[in-house]
């Protein structure tokens, strides 16, 4: 297979032309979105029916986009690999959704949400995009309420909000711990209405396996019906990818088991630049793994850190049960190192600190990969009932998984991969470098910079899907000549062949290793060297190892069954094959960005007190990588980031 390469070096990457976002209008930042919408061309309502738009994915971004585009009169053809659009992984988001409504009269504003998001992203996001996100945020809440999303309410019947993720204003709307579920079901219901009305042609259990690019424009996809195994082509005037992030490249993450990077990676191979792949977010409060059988990690709300105290034994190798460790032999390390913020330091700091103490051999639980989150003081202070009222459902979830009662035994937590800020590079219109190919939601790189704030992922997915894409896509469709792509166009046949050939290779190889075993090995490699803390040595080691592992994959992979029916091993193997390529780009990006920022912590770039040290002079850009050829070094295109409204500062929590 062409993908099998000898150990090459991604280190030979070259730097190409700088990338400029030509779509962003000038003028005052608060007027840019209005201006863009005014300058955008419109499609006559009578003509919309003639335009076919493919939407891949049915999460918050995809579901919202599909419903909205269909409502406007476009012909939408939509795909999801799940058996129903309602199962997209947005459903698992717990915390809430931010919006600059200022219902609390606590000083919030669009400007403040914009400011917080840029700062939270550690100054690696595009100001114009973030400002637009903050503007649109208020409309999202209106839209969702109109759909019947049951947000939490006050006794007066008005919406309740809370503060979230270390922000000083209370701007997070929520529906208990299931905000993502409720928002997704709102979008799903709107989409279902369009499906029933015949405006959306929905293809569940159908996975996109390649992008069809004709004459430089995205014109369709190749997708496999997971039930019949049939590989079909679907042609359209534009393609929208709403396929989520790539956190599952780490094998263990809080992503759904089948969330994958194939759609965006295949698009990348067809010409879409991939931006900032090393920007991945770790969530500090997940249930630790219980053994090698672990298949995924479960996140628990960060709010636990409001009352729980994090500690490990002072001595390495202390295997006593927590109750037997006296107070003076415990190390409440966050309170010790960061006395001002204590257990409430930001996600990345809490995560790295946990890793450090575990690396010192002071971790607890199976494999020493965990730290205690102790509620004994909280129970003594507030009483068991108050703790139960606040955290009862989380305690229950924890006990279900671990069979330990957090009221009596301290919880064990450990960080896990949770979200990926990187993704396909998009301009202000959310269009990738392939004309006609758009990326929305977590699949793109746009709004969170190097670190995403809590409750902002839902906001971005819905902003992109309901409001931003429908406006910008119209401009593309209006400006692009409508012409049919013949079904037998060479580019179509070539894409189909590439897909079927790869599936054939996987099925016929008959090796001796399962797809899962490769995934696990790759995940461990990445977690060790491109996880919470990264350094040059480790990254180079990973960059050496990945091509070898990839070659081994194509030699030793074993996929039983056939390609003509439901074959979950085949699906998995095909996804792992893409992870094995994406992982290399991730490590290269992490290596080249010799600074620490947001979720990307380079050990070489830290302040004397262990803080992430950003290097704005050298790295104040988004790194967009261009695919060249399989196994060949990519080309780096830098999009310089200019900060006119929020001035970069170094954060400090000490």
């Amino acid at each position, binding site marked *: 297979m062409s993908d099998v390469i000898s150990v090459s070096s991604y280190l030979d990457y070259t730097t190409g032309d700088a990338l400029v976002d030509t779509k962003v209008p000038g003028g005052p930042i608060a007027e840019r979105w209005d201006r863009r919408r005014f300058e955008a061309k419109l499609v006559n309502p009578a003509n919309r029916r003639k335009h076919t738009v493919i939407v891949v994915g049915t999460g918050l971004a995809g579901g919202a986009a599909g419903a909205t585009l269909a409502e406007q009169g476009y012909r939408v053809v939509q795909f999801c690999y799940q058996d129903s659009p309602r199962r997209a992984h947005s459903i698992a988001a717990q915390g809430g959704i931010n919006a600059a409504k200022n219902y609390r009269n606590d000083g919030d504003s669009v400007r403040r949400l914009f400011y917080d998001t840029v700062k939270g992203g550690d100054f690696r996001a595009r100001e114009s995009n973030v400002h637009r996100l903050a503007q649109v945020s208020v409309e999202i809440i209106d839209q969702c309420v109109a759909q*019947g999303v049951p947000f939490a309410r006050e006794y007066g019947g008005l919406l309740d909000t809370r503060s979230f993720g270390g922000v000083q204003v209370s701007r997070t709307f929520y529906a208990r711990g299931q905000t993502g*579920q409720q928002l997704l079901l709102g979008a799903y219901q709107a989409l279902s209405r369009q499906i029933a009305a015949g405006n959306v042609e929905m293809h569940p259990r159908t996975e996109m396996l390649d992008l069809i690019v004709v004459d430089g424009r995205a014109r369709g996809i190749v997708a496999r019906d997971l039930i019949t195994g049939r590989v079909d082509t679907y042609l359209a005037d534009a393609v929208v990818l709403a396929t989520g992030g790539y956190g599952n490249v780490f094998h263990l993450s809080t992503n759904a088991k089948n969330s994958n990077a194939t759609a965006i990676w295949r698009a990348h191979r067809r010409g879409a630049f991939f931006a900032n792949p090393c920007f991945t977010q770790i969530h500090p409060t997940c249930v630790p793994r219980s053994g090698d059988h672990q298949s995924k990690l479960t996140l628990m709300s960060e709010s636990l850190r409001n009352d729980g105290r994090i500690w490990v034994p002072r001595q390495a190798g202390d295997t006593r049960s927590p109750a037997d460790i006296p107070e003076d032999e415990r190390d409440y390390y966050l309170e010790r190192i960061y006395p001002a913020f204590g257990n409430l330091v930001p996600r990345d700091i809490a995560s790295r600190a946990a890793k450090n103490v575990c690396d010192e051999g002071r971790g607890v639980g199976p494999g020493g990969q965990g730290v205690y989150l102790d509620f004994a003081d909280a129970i003594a202070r507030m009483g068991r009932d108050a703790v139960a009222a606040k955290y009862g459902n989380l305690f229950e979830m924890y006990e279900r998984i671990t069979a330990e009662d957090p009221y009596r035994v301290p919880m064990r937590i450990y960080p896990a991969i949770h979200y990926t800020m990187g993704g396909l590079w998009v301009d202000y219109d959310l269009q990738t470098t392939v004309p006609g190919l758009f990326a929305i939601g977590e699949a793109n790189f746009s709004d969170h910079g190097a670190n995403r704030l809590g409750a902002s992922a839902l906001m971005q997915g819905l902003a992109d899907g309901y*409001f931003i894409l429908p406006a910008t896509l119209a401009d593309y469709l209006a400006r692009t000549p409508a012409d049919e792509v013949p079904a037998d166009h060479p580019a179509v046949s070539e894409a189909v062949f590439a897909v079927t050939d790869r599936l054939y290779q996987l099925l016929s190889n008959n090796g001796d290793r*399962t797809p899962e075993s490769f995934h696990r090995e790759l995940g461990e490699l990445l977690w060790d060297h491109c996880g919470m803390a990264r350094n040059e040595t480790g990254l180079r080691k990973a960059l050496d190892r990945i091509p070898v592992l990839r070659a081994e994959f194509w030699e030793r992979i074993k996929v039983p069954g056939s390609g003509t029916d439901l074959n979950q091993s085949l699906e998995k193997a095909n996804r792992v094959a893409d992870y094995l390529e994406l992982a290399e780009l991730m490590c290269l990006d992490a290596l080249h960005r010799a600074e620490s920022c947001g979720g990307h912590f380079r050990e070489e770039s830290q302040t004397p007190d262990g803080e992430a040290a950003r290097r704005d002079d050298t790295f104040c850009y988004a790194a967009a990588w261009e695919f060249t050829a399989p196994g060949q070094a990519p080309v780096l295109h830098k999009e310089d980031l200019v900060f006119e409204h929020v001035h970069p500062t170094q954060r400090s929590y000490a």
Partner: protein
Amino acid sequence: MNLTLRIWRQQGPDTDGTMTTYEVADISPDMSFLEMLDTLNEELILRGEEPVAFDHDCREGICGACGMVINGQAHGPERTTTCQLHMRHFSDGDTIDIEPWRAAAFPVVKDLVVDRSAFDRIIGSGGYVTAPTGSAPEAHATPVPKAAADTAFEHAECIGCGACVAACPNGSAMLFTSAKIVHLNSLPQGGPERESRVLDMVATMDDEGFGGCTVTGECATACPKGIPLSSISTMNREYLRALRKGA
């Protein structure tokens, strides 16, 4: 622990299936039920056999993809989803029967995978509020009494897993359908379509081949999200009210 599994194996929708016996060894009590099946599947792949197909995705009990009947009980002995069921609820030497959801409206696709698209069609026939993007009034324009919001939320928690149908002796989808109807009909936003929603959704539910409700309560007992049985009664009330109003 070591276990004997008797699993329904069926190659495709049109082929016959059978209960097939497998032995699994060294199962950790900390494993989830699906991780136990992962272990079996890894072995099967290495033996060159096809692994057992089952739906699963989030593995944290919210997406609703997973679901199997374990020892005759939908999602097994604990009131939770199959992915959140842990092996510590079984004992060494146990024999465990694993079957797919059984209902005419949920035809088997392969092994333990069934086609639940009937649920999507029920939602599509009225399980929404018609609110085109951009048309929404300001969120605080309509206050919603907290009690109504709480009722709506409680019913909106449904994850569409289908355990209610699997557990019901009549393969009825009343609990699923009523959960969405009660969610939306409790809210002022759902008011304008209140009658048409219940009439259309019930009609679709019947057309899809689900059985009727005989109030056995099995659905609510199996529901991993605790949708109450009273939800069905409320739907009946809404239905009769809508018929009277001649919507």
